[in-house]
Each structure stands twice: as structure tokens, then as C-alpha cells.
């Protein structure tokens, strides 16, 4: 971990590490995994529900979603080339075999712990010092949640969603599907039918969560998909900062990741959601990689509530992701900061939706796209102001940086303004790295590759600054490593 936190300026190490490591998370862990046969039908949905010992209402929810899924087709409108996903070729449940629930770290499968150690996740007790509470989800099942007791003192609930279903059924039942309905889209319906685990966070009234909550997702077993579901509820006057990180091992085939994140923000509460996404992006020829097809949405239900999304997207063969804010409460604020890097044959179609329903609502969108190799990088955004939403304000800035002549950078903003008091601004620019800047660096003895890294980091600074400290250093390093060898 000390190694991880080292100063970014320590460039010798970075370059050495970068040249040696294409994708350092590309290992699998040989642990006993319980996988159900591939395929999707009503029986599988019932089986997943039964394995998790779920109550009747949740099974009903899953079945409704499954039946709705049958009426839907895979969406094709995004600016990505995506093959038809064979839902029958995926196993929908892969859990590390449980030998009775672990009560302390000693009981957790040491190989799982070793995996997370290699990932540098602060799971062990010593990581208490790092001030994080972690819920690690491997394939489908939440492995261990740390800091539970400390959080419980404040009344903060942070646990896996299956535990929450057992322990806090009323809360889960009240909020599950309230922001992202199973009818929302194809992948949301799929997730609602087969989701296996995820995280549940509840911050009670007036509580400012003292530590950053963090989840780490990892797809491990072959031929499985990851369908996790995150539900965050911030009650009146509360605050929470939530971090999410993702990795997957290298495999030739494509792995599917279809997650749902739902956030409910009540009166005067604030939620900050940060993601560093580094799923396996496929090799240099575009083989393999994760399809990251995610529905993320937050509902600022309360008056003066605030939701802030920050994302650094460097991985995945295909990213299809639009973290959105529904600003229903008066004076509520939505923010979206994003850096999306694509290289080789990666495709990203990402952006946000800001739906202004309450009066005096404000939103800011800053999106920075960086494309290299043969990749395609698109920003897609919607700003909608409904007729009764007076005095709304939106500012959107989306910039694209092109690092090769074979890549593509695209912007698809939509502004639907139904109220005359709104002020909505959108700016977009596309250009390559300024040659004068590279020349300036070269002149001062900085090699071109390093100069590009420097310039790109400066370009993405506005977004990086929004990340929590630990993540910002990681993300900056990730950005540098990702760009390694893609200049030209």
C-alpha cells in the first residue's frame, strides 16, 4: 500500500512499472467456486433467489423483471459496435464456496485474501489505519465487510445487499427499484432478474459518515457475468463519500458486467460517488475484455440535496454508462465529472443525464475524453428542464483529446429546455495535443512520451481534483500507465 501511495512525481518507478505491466490485475485466483450451469430461464432466477434464501417479495421482483426482460431487445442506439450478447452462454451465479460465514479475517479463505492483497485492497485489519470501510464483491458474493462495528455505532448501515435483505428488509423493500426500475432498460431488467450481490448503504438523519466507504468488484470465474446492485440511501442532513473500483482477469472471451447503482438523497443530504473503473480492456488486437453496461442513477429527492458523480474510466472493451441525476427537490445540485480514456480497440459511450424537475436546481457537467489507437470515445448527455422547473442552471463542458489519427472522438449532447427561465450552456472542443507544449517539454529534456503523460494529466486535472485523495493518486497513475505506448 505504501508502494501504491508513492508520489506521482516518482517518474522513474512509474515508467519502469508501466513498461513492465500492461494490465497488472490480469490474474485469476484459484479458489473453490460454486457455479450454477450456464443459461437463463425462470428456474435459474428462482434458483439464485433460493440459494440466497430470499423472501417472497424479492423473488416476485426478480420474476417480474425476468418476464419484462423477455419483451425487450438489446439496445443498439449507442455509438458502439456490440455483438449480440448470448444470455444463455453466461452463468448467473458464481460464489466462492462458503464454509460457514466468516466471523473474523482468519476464517476468510486465505487465497481470497491473497487476491485482494495483490489488488492492494485495504481489507485486512491493518488497513483500519487507512480509514476505509471496504465491501469486496468477488464474482457475485460479498466476501467481507470491514469496519461494520464502528459504522454501526453511528447507525450507518454498510453491508452486502443480501445481508441487508435479511437484516433490514423494510429499508431495502422501500428503496430497491425506486430509482432504476426493472422496466428502465434491457440491462436493468437483466440485472434486476439475476443480481447476486452488491452493497447497501444507509446513512441515518444528521450523520456525516466519518470514513470513505469503498467497494471493490472483481470478476474471477470463467464464463460468468457480474451483476451487482448498489443501493445508497442518504437520509436528511447526512453526508457520505462512496468509492467504487473494478478489475477483472485477462481472458480471451468477453465478460459481461451489467450493474445497477441507485442513490436516494433526501433533504439537505449529500452523496459523493467516485468510480475508478479498470476492467480488463481486451488485448492490443481487441480480443476479450469486459462489456461494462451499467445503469447508474441518483434521485435528489430532498430539498437542497446534492449528488456528485466522479468517474475515471480506463478499462473495459465496451463502456455503456450514463450516471444520471434526477434533481427533483428544489435547490438540489447535480454534478458529473468524468475522464474516459480509450486505447487499442476500446469503445466508450458514456456521459450523463441531468433532469431538472425542482426549482432553482443546478447542474455541472465536465467530461474529458482521451482517445488513442483505434478506439472510439463518445460523450452522450441529456440536459432536460421540465416546464415547472424555474431558474435552473446548467453548465456543460466536454473536451476531447485525440492521440492518434485512427481513433474517433464524438459528442452527442441533447438539450431539452421547456422553461424560459433556464440558463443552459454547452461547450465542446476536439483537438490533438498542442505541438508547442510537447516542444516546450522536449526542449527541457522531457521525452515525448512523458510529456504526453504530463499534458494529459494536466488536461484531466479538473476531474482528478474531485476524487478523494487515495483515489486521485491511483487514478493519476492509472492514467499514465494506460497511455503508455499509445502515443503516436
Amino acid at each position, binding site marked *: 500500500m505504501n508502494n501504491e501511495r508513492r508520489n506521482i512525481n516518482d517518474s522513474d518507478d512509474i515508467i519502469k512499472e508501466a513498461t513492465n505491466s500492461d494490465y497488472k490485475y490480469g490474474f485469476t485466483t484459484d479458489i473453490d467456486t460454486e457455479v450454477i450451469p450456464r443459461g437463463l430461464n425462470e428456474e435459474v432466477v428462482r434458483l439464485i433467489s433460493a440459494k440466497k434464501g430470499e423472501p417472497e417479495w424479492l423473488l416476485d421482483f426478480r420474476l417480474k423483471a425476468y418476464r419484462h426482460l423477455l419483451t425487450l431487445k438489446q439496445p443498439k442506439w449507442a455509438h458502439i459496435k456490440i455483438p449480440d450478447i448470448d444470455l444463455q452462454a453466461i452463468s448467473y451465479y458464481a460464489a466462492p464456496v462458503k464454509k460457514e460465514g466468516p466471523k473474523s479475517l482468519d476464517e476468510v479463505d486465505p487465497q481470497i485474501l491473497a487476491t485482494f492483497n495483490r489488488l492492494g485492497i485495504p481489507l485486512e485489519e491493518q488497513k483500519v489505519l487507512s480509514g476505509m470501510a471496504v465491501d469486496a464483491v468477488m464474482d457475485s458474493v460479498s466476501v467481507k465487510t470491514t469496519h461494520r462495528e464502528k459504522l454501526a455505532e453511528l447507525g450507518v448501515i454498510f453491508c452486502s445487499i443480501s445481508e441487508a435483505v435479511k437484516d433490514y428488509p423494510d429499508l431495502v423493500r422501500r428503496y430497491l427499484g425506486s430509482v432504476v426500475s426493472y422496466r428502465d432498460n434491457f440491462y436493468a431488467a437483466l440485472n434486476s432478474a439475476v443480481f447476486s450481490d452488491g452493497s447497501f448503504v444507509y446513512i441515518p438523519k444528521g450523520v456525516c459518515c466519518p470514513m470513505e466507504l469503498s467497494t471493490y468488484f472483481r470478476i474471477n470465474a470463467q464464463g460468468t457475468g457480474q451483476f451487482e446492485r448498489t443501493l445508497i440511501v442518504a437520509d436528511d442532513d447526512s453526508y457520505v463519500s462512496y468509492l467504487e473500483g473494478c478489475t477483472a482477469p485477462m481472458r480471451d472471451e468477453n465478460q459481461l458486467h451489467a450493474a445497477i447503482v441507485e442513490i436516494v438523497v433526501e433533504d439537505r443530504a449529500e452523496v459523493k460517488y467516485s468510480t475508478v473503473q479498470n476492467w480488463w480492456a481486451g488485448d492490443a488486437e481487441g480480443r476479450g475484455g469486459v462489456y461494462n453496461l451499467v445503469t447508474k442513477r441518483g434521485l435528489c429527492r430532498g430539498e437542497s440535496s446534492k449528488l456528485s458523480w466522479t468517474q475515471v474510466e480506463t478499462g473495459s472493451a465496451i463502456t455503456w454508462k450514463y450516471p444520471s441525476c434526477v434533481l427533483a427537490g428544489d435547490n438540489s445540485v447535480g454534478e458529473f465529472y468524468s475522464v474516459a480514456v480509450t486505447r487499442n480497440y476500446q469503445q466508450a459511450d458514456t456521459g450523463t443525464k441531468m433532469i431538472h424537475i425542482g426549482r432553482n436546481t443546478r447542474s455541472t457537467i465536465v467530461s474529458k475524453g482521451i482517445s488513442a489507437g483505434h478506439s472510439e470515445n463518445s460523450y452522450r448527455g441529456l440536459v432536460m428542464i421540465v416546464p415547472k422547473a424555474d431558474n435552473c442552471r446548467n453548465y456543460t463542458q466536454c473536451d476531447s483529446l*485525440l492521440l492518434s489519427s485512427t481513433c*474517433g472522438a*464524438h459528442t452527442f449532447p441533447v*438539450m431539452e429546455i421547456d422553461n424560459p427561465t*433556464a440558463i443552459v450552456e*454547452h*461547450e*465542446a472542443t*476536439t483537438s490533438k495535443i498542442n505541438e508547442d507544449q510537447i516542444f516546450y517539454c522536449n526542449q527541457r529534456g522531457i521525452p515525448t512520451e512523458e510529456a504526453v503523460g504530463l499534458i494529459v494529466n494536466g488536461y484531466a486535472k479538473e476531474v482528478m481534483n474531485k476524487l478523494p485523495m487515495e483515489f486521485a493518486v491511483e487514478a493519476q497513475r492509472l492514467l499514465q500507465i494506460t497511455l503508455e505506448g499509445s502515443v503516436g
Partner: protein
Amino acid sequence: MNPFQQFIDLHKANPDFFEGKADIFEDFLKAVRNLRRFANDLAEMMKPDYGVNLNGVKSPRQPALVRRDIPDYSSAIITCVNDTYYVPASLFDGKVKVAVYDADTFPFGLNAYHSLSHFNRVFSQKVLHISIEGGAKLEHPLQINNILSAAVDLATFRRIFIEVGGGAEAKIIFNDTTADADHRYLSSQFVDVFLNDDAHLELYDITDTSDNVARLNELKVKLKRRCDFNLYSLSLSAGNSINIYDLDFESDNSEARINGFVIGDGNQRIGNSTFVNHLSRHCRSNQNFKYVLDEKSHGTFYGEIFVWEVARFTEAYQSNKNILVSRDARMLSEPQLLIYNDDVKCSHGASTGQLDESALFYMRQRGIPENVARTMLTQAFVGDVVDAVKYQPLRDRLRLLVENRLYKRSSRPCDNCRMGCDTLNRK
């Protein structure tokens, strides 16, 4: 039954007629609906029981309609009443050749690009062909006056080919007006423009029709080497209107500018769509669209800049600014960039808001009544589009027309025409 479908059913037996596209009308409706680009309700536009002029019956030309619309400059005028062209024997001493062909025997081939042009292709009976001689420098503009005048609800289809020879310089003004505002019209126009090397063209598309007109307009422009093309899309008043402007840079070193404004009120639905296709190197494009929407009007802007891999050293800019004046006005703006090449400078900007309150306050403080102050600011807002008009007599004229339009002044010599030359001249 829908008259268009009726027409299609009648001709279904003839296999050559639709080239196997018997369901073209449905396709057309579906395609446009799927695009979701326009606030216009196309099905609603198609609903009235329009008459379709299938046998090419000539619409009579009434002398009162044929007037020089814009004073202080002389121009050659081609009048088109509904879909009947009245072409003078000679234009610009023979430098411009004009001919009207039957659509079936048109020698240059009829292309169709979008669903709107497919629709037009099926129903248009005549093709107007305008050819400007290479090297001709035309001092005065060529005006094409489209007048809608009928005693029944009518659908009209116009197909126009314009070819500008190498090194020629020309100005063409399209002027759409309505003479009998009591009836409903579907006005479909598809214009193909070819610019040869070093050609300069200024093209003005002025719409000033009644609210009962559903207008489907498509303009396809192909530019060769070193061309200079200026397009002005000026919607003073358009009932229910869709404009598609489609530009292809086929060769290097060309430049195109598109300027447009929309002034909407009542229940008007006005959509503009631009596709700028950069297929070659060293080309520049610049787009600027401004909307002022009042009452229950809805506006749409869909702009697409496509830079292909080969189109290095491209500069492409786009700007769309809108003012919503009333609570019920709506605006949908989609400015898009698709870029497949790294040696480009591209940007787009869009904003929607209202008039600057502090400027309003400043003006009222100095004794200017609020409605006058608002109109002055609005006028200044669309002013830069009007100022970009290169042809001075037209620019002066447009300033007046915009002012009249914003003050909702009835400056019409006849009740139905807002171009209103004679009355204004007397002032």
C-alpha cells in the same frame, strides 16, 4: 384514407414506379419518427386531406402575385406557383440556363438521400434545372419565388437542380410565401446544388409562410475544390417546418458558412438540421443558428459535423444559441461532433436562456418601455446573423423585416404576405 397512401396504392401495380419501394410512405414516417430530431409531429402534418397534383395540372399565375419582393435591387425572378414554374425566356444574357423537365425524363438522374427526399422523389412531377455558366460573375441575385396559392388544401412537390460552373459567382434567393392563408399546404422541396472548382455561391432560404403550411425542405450541396459557399436559413415565419441542410466537402480547400435564425410564435414548430460532411482535407465550415421562440412555439436544432479519417486539417465550428421568451416555448438542441481523425480543430457550443435582465433594467431606467427594450435586445440577438448577410440591399431589407416581425407589425400589402414591399416603400 391518407391521400399519399391512396396514390401509392394506385400505382402499386406498376413495378417500375417505386423501384420496389411500395411502402415508402410508411418508411418515411417511421424513419423521421425514429430520428426524434424534430419537435414537429410529422403524422399530424400529414393528416389533412391534401390534394395531390398527379396529372401536372398547371396552377394559374395571378399577376398580383408576381412582384419584385425586395426593392432596391434588380433580380431575375423565377416564379413557382405551387408546383408550376414560370421561367423567363432568358436570364443574365444567357449566362444562366433554366429548363423545366418532366421528372420521368430528367437526364441527370435523381438522387435521394434522406427520407424526406425519398418522399419528394416519389411525388414530384417536374424538375427545375438551373445551370450557371463557368466563369460567370452575376452581379444581381436570381430569385426563386415559391408561392402557395390554392382553393383547396394542397400538397406541392418541387424538385430543383442547381449547377454552378467553375469559377462562377452567383447569389440565389429562395423566397417562400403563402397567398391564400385559409388553406392548408404541404410544401415539399428538394434542392440539389453542385459547386464546381472555384465556384462562389450565396444561397438564401427565406421562409415567410402562413401558420397553415407544413414545410419539408431539403438542400443537398456538394462542393468541389476551393469553393466558397454561404447559406442563410432565415425563418421569419414558418408554420410547421423541417429544414435539412446537407453539405459534402468532396474536394480540398473549400469553405462553407451556414447562418440561420428562427423567429417563432403561435403554435409554430420549426426544426433545422445540418449535416456537414468533411470528406477532404483543408476544408473549413462554420455554423451559427439562433432561435427566438415566443408563445407556444417549439424549436429544434440538430447539427452534425462528421470528420472522416482522410479529412485532415479540418476546421469545423458550430454554435446554436436560443432565447425562450414565453413559458410555453420549448427548445430541443442536439449539436453533435463525430471525429475520426486527430488533425482537426472542432468545437461546438449551445446555450439556451433568456434576455439579459441587467441590460433590460439599464434600458428601462433610461425611459425605454419594456416591450421596446425587449424587442431591441432580441433584434440585437439575431442581428449577427442578419449582419452576416453579404448582399447589402437584402441585408437592409432583412433588418426591416425582422423588426416588423418582432413588433408583430402588420406591414403587409395584402393580408397574407409578410414580405410587404409596397406598403413599406411608401413609408
